[in-house]
């Protein structure tokens, strides 16, 4: 899949969820490139901002969109990677803070 096609699909998907892709498109394209790299590498779109195990069962929680996305958007307006954000985050009406890692330590590749 091309980056532009993925961008279009995920942009529509985000809107259907009441959220958005980060309006910084070059930043988003960089993340999508990471997703496609991980898909080629592992066979699934593992979060590009986290070190994957390379075993789908162990990475299930960080296959994008990760299970931490919604609580991160609820608390910070953005997911850990900054791919998915709230409308308010995009509009700059909420403070943009660094999103800490929510994935439990025992699940991480450390």
């Amino acid at each position, binding site marked *: 899949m091309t980056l532009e096609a993925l961008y279009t699909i995920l942009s529509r998907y985000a809107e259907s969820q009441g959220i958005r892709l980060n309006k910084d498109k070059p930043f988003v394209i*960089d993340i999508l490139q*990471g997703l496609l790299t991980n898909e080629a590498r592992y066979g699934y779109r593992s979060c590009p*901002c986290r*070190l*994957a195990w390379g075993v789908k069962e162990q990475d299930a929680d960080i296959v994008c969109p990760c299970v931490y996305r919604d609580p991160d958007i609820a608390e910070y307006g953005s997911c850990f*990677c900054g791919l998915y954000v709230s409308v308010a985050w995009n509009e700059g009406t909420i403070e943009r803070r660094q999103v800490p890692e929510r994935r439990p330590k025992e699940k991480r590749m450390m």
Partner: protein
Amino acid sequence: MGPKISIKLYTLSTCSHCSRTKRFFKDNDIEMEAVDVDLLSGADRERVMDEVRKLNPDCSFPTICINDTVIVGFNEEKLKKALKLP
């Protein structure tokens, strides 16, 4: 010229925050050593992850070590402060 600063970046090749961090150093013409941990395997990865764990027990990326200062994530303000940039 002041004393040479030791700068090491622990990054993922796929991570956009890591890319931003690398670009920050490049744009400011500051030499650094960057290691993409996801591209390592076996003993090399274990050795590097040991280093990351000591600096940042969260083992998240990017982990940036500037002399004795550890910065986690791309934070331009913190980087500028650690590098004494205007």
